[in-house]
């Protein structure tokens, strides 16, 4: 693992998520969780694009596979490494935003939070217009209601990921 991959592994560990990449759902959960960690100030250096399921980083996917391969070989280069205290604290706080629910619910929640943040952060929509955000998501066949979008906006603000 290179430094960026070690940082990634430690971040996923810090969020109490399993480093699981077997299914599309697994990979989506990791993509969106890392997106939110970066939005919270844990700088891992992954740049996200907009894909059909919201923010997505191809280089993160590559690193996920590289780490997954090493873990399958009983190698974990992140052992003995640690994140700085400030980032550890940020992940600790962010953990509360990640529901301890079943995987489909977790996926849905993370996809919504990350997508809403991305659209606002990249100036694709206005932050105060939940309807516009909902409509944009509908174009990508996402059935998030306006109420869910409003809740996501509130949570993103509460956790300091968006300015009030």
């Amino acid at each position, binding site marked *: 693992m290179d430094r960026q991959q070690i940082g990634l592994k430690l971040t996923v560990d810090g969020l109490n998520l399993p480093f699981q990449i077997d299914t599309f759902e697994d990979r989506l959960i990791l993509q969106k969780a890392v997106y939110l960690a970066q939005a919270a100030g844990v700088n891992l250096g992954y740049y996200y694009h907009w894909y059909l399921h919201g923010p997505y980083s191809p280089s993160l996917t590559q690193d996920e596979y590289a780490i997954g391969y090493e873990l399958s070989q009983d190698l974990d280069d992140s052992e003995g490494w640690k994140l700085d205290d400030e*980032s550890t604290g940020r992940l600790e706080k962010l953990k509360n935003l990640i529901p301890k629910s079943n995987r489909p619910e977790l996926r849905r929640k993370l996809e919504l939070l990350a997508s809403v943040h991305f659209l606002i952060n990249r100036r694709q929509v206005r932050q105060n217009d939940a309807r516009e955000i909902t409509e944009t998501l509908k*174009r990508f066949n996402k059935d998030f209601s306006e109420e869910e979008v409003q809740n996501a906006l509130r949570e993103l603000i509460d956790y300091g990921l968006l300015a009030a």
Partner: protein
Amino acid sequence: MVSSQHDDSAKHVVDSIHGNIHLKEREVKVIDTPSFQRLRQLKQLAMAQLVYPTATHTRFSHSIGALATMIRILGSAEENGIPFEPEEKENLRLAALLHDIGHYPYSHLMEKVDSIKLIEEEVEGAPPTAKAIDTTRSKYPEHEEVGELIVTGQDDLVKAIGGGERAKAVADIFTRSKAADAQLSKLIHSSFDIDRWDYLLRDSYATGVPYGHIDLNYLLNNLKVSPQKVVGFSDKALPAVEHFLLARFFMHRVVYYHKTIYGMEEACRQLLRRLRDRDGEHYGVPTDGEAVKNLVTSRDLRMFTDAFVDNIIQRAVDDEDSVVRALANSIQSRKPPVLLKKVLVCEETENQYHAGKWFIQNCKAKLRNLADEFQIPLQQFLLCEPKSTIVKRHKGPTFGQAAQMKPDQIKEKAFEEEGEDIKIFVGDDEEPTSLMDIEHSLVVKYANYFFQMFRLYVIYEGEDKEDVVTQLGDKVKSWDKAE
């Protein structure tokens, strides 16, 4: 060579790969900006010219080549009855032209400084303080993000593109931020990467290494766009597609991962990382991602060329730190790091035990003692492990499993990863299928394999260099075996 379409063109340029490329007035204005002209000072292949003397081509020519490829893709889309609004088409062309505008000096070499591990962090016995990841420090942004900052933040480009709103629309395309149109998004993501089409041919032409000569014309002539705006190839072009994938693999093996080029570039990466992170003189190496962002949005962008790094190397040659001096001298005097041992591995991805794994483990366990024994600073040993595959198989349903899937299960497949997949139109099918699902494809059979080069270099320029290198080579020659 082909001639790109030339309706209402303002100027044409002659290109060694694509022939005549007809440019529109706005594209000429963009090319004529100082921000775009900077690309003339960025070598496409970084340090490859130290081995292949004619590999001096630039991001500038590649960017115009990418535009030529986009023109052909748009032509093909229209032939397939996929209409574009004039502005949408113009923006796609500009996005192709500007897709590499954010590259760093020496490209990926500098961009990846944050990923570099230092040898003293890797070997056994490293102090815990060395094994700390500081994620509060902003990382160097990826070149696409830098590109967005330049396109929307440099006045010359904003003006040439036609204003801030238009500049953002163009940047949204090449950064793939655009969320307004799901169909357009699919077209961009599935367009088989205009980047690679051009660079394989251009790199091959410039280096004189023939492996990258893909059959671009045949690929382009067999390009199809589905009603869902997914780009793919007619199945009769399958051999050309497979050849493209093999060409990419061999260019990696022979050029991009060449032992001398890779060793020199690794020395430079290490040099930049060490200068950036130390308390003393940085010689202008940006200290973090914010410093990079400030630089590329200022007038200093014009100096952010290969010469920017050359100047750092030049100054570091006389540094007070002997490791910094050794790294800088190696590059400046073209005395490449000496390869002590290489372990080439071609294995199935699931294989848990191979020589490369033992080699890395032995290096981590024994390198510190070896460095002490020969009184060479540990930091002058470079451990590299570049890896490549012909085609990647993402975990997911196999061909047989997919055939059993229900439509709603198919929707659950990795759409995002499919964006990087190659699509083939089988027979008269309206929508294409993944190359990975073509059972008779030769390259798909290779998807279960990876190729990796494990290498240990040393930088040492003592008068007894020949003897020392021979002795070091003897010491490490059995490090690829389990003990």
